[in-house]
């Protein structure tokens, strides 16, 4: 096994790699403000402390060996500076930002209307340029002073090594802010890339963000992403993440959504690419009357491995959440879904429904589904359910008996299956864009799994 040999070799070089990474970080920090230096140094220290604890023994990592990701750290970290590109995208009414290799979003503003514009910034620049005091306060409160817990090694690594952080700040005066962020991995060798995004929605603000992760050149990339979102009171946030990377690339992301009172968040995780994927999506419902959904869709074949780990933490009363993860796995693809609903003592009248539904297209495809309810309040409605099955043979015959060929019949039934997730995407142009991407992916993956 050639791959294993390489991995062992890489692991033995870990210490050396870490020293290199630390030196790189030190160079980056030279011209940084003290707030940034402190938080990065702390994050690095925490990474070194927590790394030994990130093993398959951790409850949340039962179905995906963390070594799949840890082994990739030893690849050199990408440091190429590439400039921010702002462009019009095909999505109606959206502005586009392209981040290549997770670095240097630059500090740019662009006009949505004449004078109201979302602030889009390089995080460290905020301390040097004249950032709004309110924004600096928010960042100090929510992002720089943070605690890391046991399973946070990769998240801490990201905080330490991410060269730049894309910051998007939305206030209600801006109206609905619509942005598409393209994360592109494109280098000429195997690389680790740490990408970091902060989104802040002030009270009453409205934003729709779509993030797309892509890779070029078929190298062995490791994208370690972190997205932290602060959704203010009565703010409305629609958020779609689409993974389209090459099947030579690895994707890990920690997404943290902090929601205030009366906030509404619609989140859709669409997994169509990458070889190994783990999404950790955490909803912290900090204020009462939250309303929203956390949905996911995975289409995987070949040797893809996709792990969706979600947690909805009801820390305040009367929160309403719907969670629906659907997956179609072909070939030798493996999937995992771990979904926790936590209801704390303060979370009375929580109404949470979780569902995980999977279709396996081959005997060798696999899904592990693990719902978890942890409830400390006594007046709640929480349900969960999981189903795993094959394509319905009777339905296939029905469709074929109407003249529709086998491949198209399969495609129609699969699109219908995943359509439930797509139809819940709030923004119509994102909805049709995702539908098109899913349609293409299903077409490709069906062709390859049955031919």
């Amino acid at each position: 096994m050639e791959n294993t040999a390489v991995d062992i070799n890489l692991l033995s070089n870990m210490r050396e790699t870490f020293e290199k990474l630390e030196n790189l970080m030190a160079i980056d920090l030279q011209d940084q403000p003290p707030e940034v230096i402190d938080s990065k140094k702390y994050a690095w220290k925490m990474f070194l402390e927590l790394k030994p604890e990130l093993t398959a023994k951790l409850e949340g990592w039962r179905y995906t060996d963390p070594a799949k990701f840890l082994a990739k750290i030893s690849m050199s970290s990408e440091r190429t500076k590439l400039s921010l590109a702002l462009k019009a995208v095909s999505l109606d009414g959206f502005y586009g930002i392209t981040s290549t290799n997770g670095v240097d979003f630059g500090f740019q503003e662009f006009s949505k209307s004449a004078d109201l514009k979302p602030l889009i910034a390089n995080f460290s620049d905020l301390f040097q340029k004249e950032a709004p005091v309110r924004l600096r306060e928010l960042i100090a409160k929510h992002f720089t002073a943070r605690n890391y817990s046991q399973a946070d090694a990769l998240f801490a690594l990201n905080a330490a090594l991410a060269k730049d952080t894309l910051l998007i700040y939305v206030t209600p005066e801006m109206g609905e802010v619509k942005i598409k962020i393209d994360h592109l991995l494109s280098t000429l060798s195997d690389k680790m890339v740490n990408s970091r995004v902060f989104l802040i929605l002030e009270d009453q603000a409205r934003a729709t963000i779509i993030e797309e992760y892509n890779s070029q050149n078929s190298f062995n990339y490791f994208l370690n992403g972190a997205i932290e979102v602060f959704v203010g009171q009565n703010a409305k946030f629609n958020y779609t993440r689409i993974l389209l990377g090459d099947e030579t690339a690895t994707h890990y992301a920690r997404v943290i959504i902090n929601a205030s009172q009366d906030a509404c968040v619609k989140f859709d995780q669409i997994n169509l690419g990458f070889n190994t994927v783990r999404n950790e999506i955490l909803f912290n419902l900090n204020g009462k009357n939250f309303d929203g959904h956390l949905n996911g869709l995975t289409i995987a074949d070949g040797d893809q491995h996709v792990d969706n780990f979600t947690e909805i933490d009801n820390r305040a009363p009367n929160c309403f959440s719907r969670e629906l993860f659907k997956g179609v796995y072909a070939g030798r693809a493996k999937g995992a879904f771990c979904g926790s609903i936590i209801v704390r003592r303060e979370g009375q009248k929580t109404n949470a429904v979780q569902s995980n539904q999977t279709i396996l297209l081959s005997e060798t495809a696999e899904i592990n589904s693990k719902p978890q309810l942890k409830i400390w309040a006594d007046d709640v409605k929480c349900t969960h359910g999981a189903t795993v099955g094959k394509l319905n043979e009777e339905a296939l015959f029905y469709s074929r008996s109407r003249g529709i060929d086998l491949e198209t019949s399969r495609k129609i039934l699969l699109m219908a299956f995943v359509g439930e997730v797509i139809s819940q995407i709030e923004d119509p142009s994102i909805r049709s864009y995702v539908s098109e991407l899913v349609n293409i992916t299903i077409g490709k993956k069906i062709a390859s799994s049955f031919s």
Partner: protein
Amino acid sequence: MLQIKNLVVSVEGKKILKGLNLEIRAGEIHAIMGANGSGKSTLAHLLAGKEGYEVESGEITYQGMNLLELDPEIRARAGVFLAFQYPLELPGVSLNYFLRTSLNSVRAHRNLEPLGVREFNDLLKERAKALELDPDLLQRSVNEGFSGGEKKRNEILQMAILEPQLAILDETDSGLDIDALRVVASGVNKLRAKDRSFLVITHYQRLLNYIIPDYVHVMLDGKIVRSGGKELAFELEQKGYGWIAES
């Protein structure tokens, strides 16, 4: 149109059809009657191309082709249509889209241009109206939440859209009240044509009051044991299937 010769078919090692013979010429309506378990539905499914049946001997020729060699979709495109006894629900697949895909697959086979959305919608509306189907159903998922009668009428609607050469109606009357039965039968009768044949499979004679067959066959234990004109259906209704078994 269709010739079935000495057909022996088993399912999971159990013989269901035990030497069945049947010939249907263009334009004829044949009814097959028989008690539950006599093999009627097996025959219907086999003709449409369902998997899971083992043909031990015999042959089925449809328009000169060996029907058993064709995939279900090819049979459908070549004009074979099965109205299901238990139509499937396809959640998330709109009836409109499903039927348009179906019709255009069949049209492609006949070297006809595909129908555009507008043309198709006009056709669908017109045919649905004739079957007194609620237009709202056309926008819903295939059969999802349809009543039993709506499902059966939807089968006939699909038949009316696809305009098959050989239509097989598998217990289309089951679960229908008398009004629905009349609507369904009139839908079928409108489609009667010189070059179109029907195989009507039913347990009861009452459907045959509305769809008048040219021939009635009685099936018993995997074989056709008696054939006759439409009067045979009345005789069966009066005397029951036991009479055939005894005689």
